[in-house]
């Protein structure tokens, strides 16, 4: 049987197995085992455990549980509420100020958290009830958090970018830096939309002018956020000063966050710490099991020459490179609606990497495009993880309202991708400025 035929069968079988509802990690292992047994020759199964173990025992992967721990510690503490409160005090008189405060809080939280649902949960669990209580339109309120959460994987640290760095052998520090400016750009675009949408709504304008805070009140709010900003500065200092590798920074960040929540927020009861660690263990295991399984899957694809055949076929297509980029993005968009970013990056990047290089696309730039693209999948059904988070924090808002509220933000994400394609410097100048050209 030719490699192309095997590739097509593999695609169909993988989709079938995953759509049955088998956990993605086990599904990938199952498909790998089936194909290795049928096509891989007598000894293909001998290395199954070793392949998974080799992939997992890497210092770079340690970044993931540690960044998850960093986000979880701050997420469980009252820090989310503090950031959000202090931003709200400054923005109280702006139409849509409450929504903007939520979006900015998501952006700030994203700077210590590498995961999108975790960001949406941390800010959303306080922000959404508050916005609804104060009469913000439910669609706008939930849409803003849904979209704001996706900033978690664009603004560093980002688990998606870490995996991309591992899969494509690009510098994780460089990828993180590349996410900064596009992240700020997306936050500004989201905030501008919330402002304009509220200006057009007479009720929202009336709502805004009711509250005032004195300057001391505003400053007090800032003070409570200061230690939290300190962690962001410490992470940035260690990482961009070249003092430590991403995994080491993740450890220091997690350590500082734990100290912060214990010392300032007095979260030292075992039952409270258990919440932090329980969520960390659960999420890290989920991500790393998929990574281990995806390693086996990639090994199988490569052994059966499916990876190489697919890449060769894509490279040999005579097509305008931007047309190809649009097609790749459409494919990622569909894939992103069903699979989490972790699985997509590890399964597809081995195929896409040579294609991007053959067509002269910058791998760092593509990381940002890919991340924004996969973010869209996080807020669209059927497997939009952020939607589930919203269902948890605001069960009274119907899913259709959340979705309708998210759509303008999705449109802004597409716009951001177009802007980044026209001006790749938005993503690239910062890493180039700090680290020089390279990958």
């Amino acid at each position: 049987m030719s490699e192309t035929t095997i590739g097509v069968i593999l695609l169909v079988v993988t989709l079938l197995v995953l759509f049955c509802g088998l956990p993605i990690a086990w599904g990938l292992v199952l498909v790998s085992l089936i194909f290795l047994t049928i096509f891989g020759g007598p000894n293909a199964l001998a290395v199954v455990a070793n392949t998974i173990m080799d992939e997992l025992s890497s210092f770079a992967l340690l970044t993931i549980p540690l960044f998850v721990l960093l986000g979880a510690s701050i997420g469980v503490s009252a820090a989310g509420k503090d950031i959000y409160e202090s931003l709200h005090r400054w923005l109280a008189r702006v139409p849509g100020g409450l929504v903007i405060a939520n979006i900015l809080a998501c952006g700030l939280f994203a700077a210590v958290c590498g995961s999108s649902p975790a960001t949406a949960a941390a800010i959303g669990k306080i922000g959404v009830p508050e916005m609804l209580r104060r009469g913000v339109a439910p669609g706008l309120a939930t849409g803003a958090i849904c979209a704001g959460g996706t900033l978690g994987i664009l603004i560093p640290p980002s688990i998606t970018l870490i995996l991309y760095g591992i899969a494509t052998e690009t510098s994780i520090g460089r990828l993180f830096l590349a996410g900064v400016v596009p992240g700020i750009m997306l936050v500004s675009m989201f905030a501008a939309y919330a402002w304009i949408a509220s200006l057009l709504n007479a009720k929202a304008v009336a709502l805004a002018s009711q509250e005032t805070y004195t300057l001391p009140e505003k400053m007090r709010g800032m003070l409570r956020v200061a230690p939290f900003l300190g962690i962001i500065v410490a992470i940035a200092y260690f990482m961009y000063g070249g003092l430590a590798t991403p995994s080491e920074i993740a450890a220091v960040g997690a350590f500082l966050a734990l100290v912060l929540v214990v010392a300032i927020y007095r979260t030292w009861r075992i039952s409270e710490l258990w919440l932090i660690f329980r969520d960390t263990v659960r999420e890290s295991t989920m991500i790393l099991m998929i990574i281990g399984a995806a390693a086996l899957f990639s090994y199988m694809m490569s052994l059966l020459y499916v990876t190489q055949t697919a890449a060769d076929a894509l490279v040999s297509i005579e097509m305008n490179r931007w047309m190809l980029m649009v097609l790749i993005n459409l494919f990622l968009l569909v894939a992103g609606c069903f699979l989490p970013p972790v699985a997509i990056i590890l399964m597809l990047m081995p195929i896409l990497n040579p294609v991007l290089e053959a067509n002269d696309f910058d791998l760092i730039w593509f990381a940002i495009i890919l991340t924004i693209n996969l973010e869209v999948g996080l807020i669209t059904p059927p497997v939009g993880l952020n939607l589930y988070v919203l269902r948890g924090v605001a069960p009274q808002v119907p899913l259709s309202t959340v979705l309708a509220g998210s759509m303008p933000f999705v449109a802004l994400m597409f716009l951001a991708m177009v802007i980044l394609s026209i001006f790749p410097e938005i993503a690239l100048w910062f890493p180039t400025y700090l680290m020089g050209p390279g990958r």
Partner: protein
Amino acid sequence: MIRFVRLIDGVSVVCAAIASVFLLTAVLVVTWMIFYRAMGNSAFWEIEFAVYLMVAAIFLGSPYCAKTKGHVAVDLLTEFTPAAASRAIALTLAAVSLVICLYLTVEGAQLTYHAWASGETTESYWRPVKWPLFISMPIGLGLTALQYLAEIVRREHAS
């Protein structure tokens, strides 16, 4: 039977607690290493030790992850099927997950045994033996398989 389910649930939570301690230890070891190194000393065992702890933590976390439905799945099928059918699907999925975890448990156990019997070490300066790294795989996934068995028993018992 229900005692078996409770026992397995309890074991999963205990494993998650051990995994938490391992992760915390990894955080402390790496943080300590950075300061130790900044003082001009050289570090040699810390990184590898932290990786051992992480690998153990994620495999030990797996049964808890399975218990709390933390392993992400595309659950489209069950959303669009009638209740009776989706119960049957859930049972089948738990059974398939159980078989996959059992298979990986056996493979992991063999890997561990070979590493133990041959005294295999890593290739670093520290050269720790590898079997303690590998053994977390059969333990963690074996318990995950038991957790899926407990899920099946729980469902049978409830219906």
